């Protein structure tokens, strides 16, 4: 809540969305100038990333920020409220956007740019940023639809038969999921009478935990679980994510499912903590099955891209595992009790060697905060690493002319640099040290043990092992072995540009940028854990969020 004139830095809350929509519209207007497009798009994405970083710094320094649209008073107007969770997600999205834009510049042919890749990418990024920044639950629905519109445009780029097939399934399933979101929001409005998330958080706490609120929580779980591709509702993802261009797959895999995860965290954990505690067992089952489906699905695939589709699902399962942990002894305590948290941390530190190593990372918290912090860390890691894996797979497929593991090979000899980067990403996605996937898994496994769910920790470790096997197969077949006999020309992946057309050497630059994150977050995880910890505490105890909207009088 703001009084009087605003300083220019206050507009950072809205800047990511405004930048995306302005650049997207401008690029769509000059769609004929194909050669100019990337040279406007890349500065646009750099500007977006800069705004995201400034916003993150501002939130880190001053706490949650709010701007009311059109100067309407809360809770009646639409609020844009950004806390640490939203700022972290939006910054990571901007980071991935920069890398993907550079990659697209050097890998997309002119005809594909003609169809409007960059405008739709900006539109999708605008939707993603809006979803991360908004503080109004109906507005969240609107941003979901904006990002879906952008993603539809990207998905059918090229209009091949395979893409139309995949896009049909993707569009229907996502439309049903967002409609379910809307239905639930209607129910929520009928029960609570407000749509502002800070207001809901206050009012829902005073409601009785009866069937109506639990129904709403379950429906949100279904709607966002469908968006995030969690287990029984994951079938649309492997049906569609491998059909568009690699860079489009990379953006989808990195960002779209994570928007579902973000919405689930925001709605279920912040707005309905008692219902979340009731549903924790269900979520833990969903998480375990999602992880196993992802890992076993990846083992069964012969196409590199479809294998990566299942890696995305396994990652979602790991994040859900973090959301399944409840505070302490199965209690529904929404506020962090410092005393009990300290005793818990002290009592469980010598659990295992790994737990002891992780102990200084999240000092003195209950397992709800630990799980959430680990889930957010894993989600950020997953955004970057899944994008990087698809981009690297795109370069590899371009060089070998196919993305089928039967036809690929000899890339270690041909491109040692690419192979090394791929190895980094595969290590990271499997959760092996010293890369970014290791620490969140440590935190999650430790949290699972502390919350009295050792079997969930075991499933996380088993999934990590299975993903290591699948990763090893990718590396051994596509990179390590000698090139197989010339594959059948015009196989299932004949849609690629002929090898060596634009320079894939320059397309290595975004991979390097993304690898820097994997290494830095793997070697120096403290700064990131400190930030995700702040984010998790902000969700568990939303007093700061509410105060930012209602001007301190919560």
């Amino acid at each position, binding site marked *: 809540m*703001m009084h*009087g*004139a*605003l300083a*220019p830095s206050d*507009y950072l809350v*809205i800047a990511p969305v*405004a930048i995306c*929509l*302005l650049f*997207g*519209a*401008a*690029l*769509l*207007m000059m*769609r004929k100038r194909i050669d100019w497009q990337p040279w406007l798009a890349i500065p646009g994405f750099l500007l977006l990333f800069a705004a995201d970083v400034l916003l993150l710094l501002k939130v880190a320094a001053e706490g949650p920020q709010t*701007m*009311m*649209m*059109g*100067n*309407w008073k809360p809770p009646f*107007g639409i609020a*844009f409220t950004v806390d640490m969770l939203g700022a972290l997600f939006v910054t990571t999205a901007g980071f991935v956007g920069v890398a993907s834009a550079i990659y697209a510049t050097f890998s997309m042919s002119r005809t594909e740019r003609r169809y*409007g890749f960059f*405008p739709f990418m900006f539109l999708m990024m605008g939707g993603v940023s809006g979803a991360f920044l908004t503080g109004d639950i109906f507005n969240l629905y609107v941003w979901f639809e904006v990002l879906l519109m952008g993603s539809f445009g990207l998905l059918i780029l090229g209009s091949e038969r395979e893409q139309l097939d995949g896009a049909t399934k993707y569009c229907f399933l996502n439309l049903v999921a967002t409609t379910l979101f809307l239905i639930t929001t209607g129910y929520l409005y009928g029960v609570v009478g407000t749509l502002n998330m800070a207001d809901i958080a206050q009012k829902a706490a005073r409601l009785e935990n009866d069937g109506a609120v639990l129904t709403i929580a379950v429906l949100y779980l279904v709607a966002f679980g469908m968006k995030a591709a969690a287990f029984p509702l994951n079938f649309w993802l492997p049906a569609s994510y491998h059909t568009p261009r690699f860079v489009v797959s990379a953006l989808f895999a990195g960002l779209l499912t994570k928007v579902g995860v973000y919405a689930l965290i925001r709605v279920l954990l912040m707005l309905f903590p008692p219902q979340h505690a009731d549903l924790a067992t269900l979520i833990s089952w969903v998480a375990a099955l999602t992880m196993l489906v992802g890992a076993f699905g990846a083992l069964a695939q012969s196409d590199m891209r479809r294998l990566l589709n299942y890696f995305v699902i396994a990652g979602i399962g790991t994040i859900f595992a973090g959301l399944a942990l409840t505070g302490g002894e199965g209690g529904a305590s929404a506020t962090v009790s410092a005393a009990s948290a300290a005793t818990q941390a002290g009592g469980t530190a010598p659990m295992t060697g790994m737990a002891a190593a992780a102990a200084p990372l999240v000092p003195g918290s209950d397992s709800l905060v630990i799980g959430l912090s680990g889930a957010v860390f894993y989600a950020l890691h997953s955004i970057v690493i899944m994008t990087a894996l698809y981009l690297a797979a795109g370069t590899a497929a371009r060089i070998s002319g196919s993305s089928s593991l039967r036809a690929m090979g000899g890339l270690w000899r041909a491109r040692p640099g690419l192979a090394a980067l791929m190895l980094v990403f595969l290590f990271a996605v499997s959760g092996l040290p010293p890369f970014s996937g290791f620490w969140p898994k440590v935190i999650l496994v430790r949290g699972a043990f502390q919350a009295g769910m050792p079997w969930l920790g075991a499933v996380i470790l088993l999934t990590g092992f299975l993903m290591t096997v699948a990763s090893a197969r990718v590396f051994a077949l596509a990179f390590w072995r000698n090139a197989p006999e010339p594959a059948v020309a015009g196989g299932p992946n004949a849609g690629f540009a002929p090898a060596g057309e634009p320079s894939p050497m320059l397309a290595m630059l975004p991979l390097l940028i993304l690898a820097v994150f994997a290494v830095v977050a793997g070697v120096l995880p403290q700064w990131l854990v400190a930030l995700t910890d702040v984010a998790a505490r902000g969700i568990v105890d939303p007093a700061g969020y509410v105060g930012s909207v209602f001007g301190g009088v919560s």
Partner: protein
Amino acid sequence: MRTVIFRFTAPYLTALMVLFSIFVLLRGHNDPGGGFIGGLIAASALAIYGIACGVAAVRRALWFHPMAISASGLFLAVVAGIFSVFAGTGFMTGLWVFPKIFGTEVALSTPLIFDIGVYLVVVGGIASIALALEERESD
């Protein structure tokens, strides 16, 4: 559908509908109307013209690509929000000026700019979809 009578009357009907759509757009601030419904009327006008005289004639008459029209509308709508940065108020705040033009007070505002943006987005978006469907029927 391409009867002589329809082809003869369609341009007049289209012109009238576009004019009416602009009227609906401008009356939108204080009375029923506005950018969305105005845009729909204009888009249906273009669709009628396309049914009568062919899609190519519509594209020639529009001059710009429908998606470019849509994009210009989006641009305008965001710019209407950005004016509030200079006034130091919340994004998208309605700002009004009342200049005297030929002795008459005219109310100009950022909501009007936003509404024109919505109008253009709807015209461009719906027209491009309608034209895409009509194009496939004819060939």
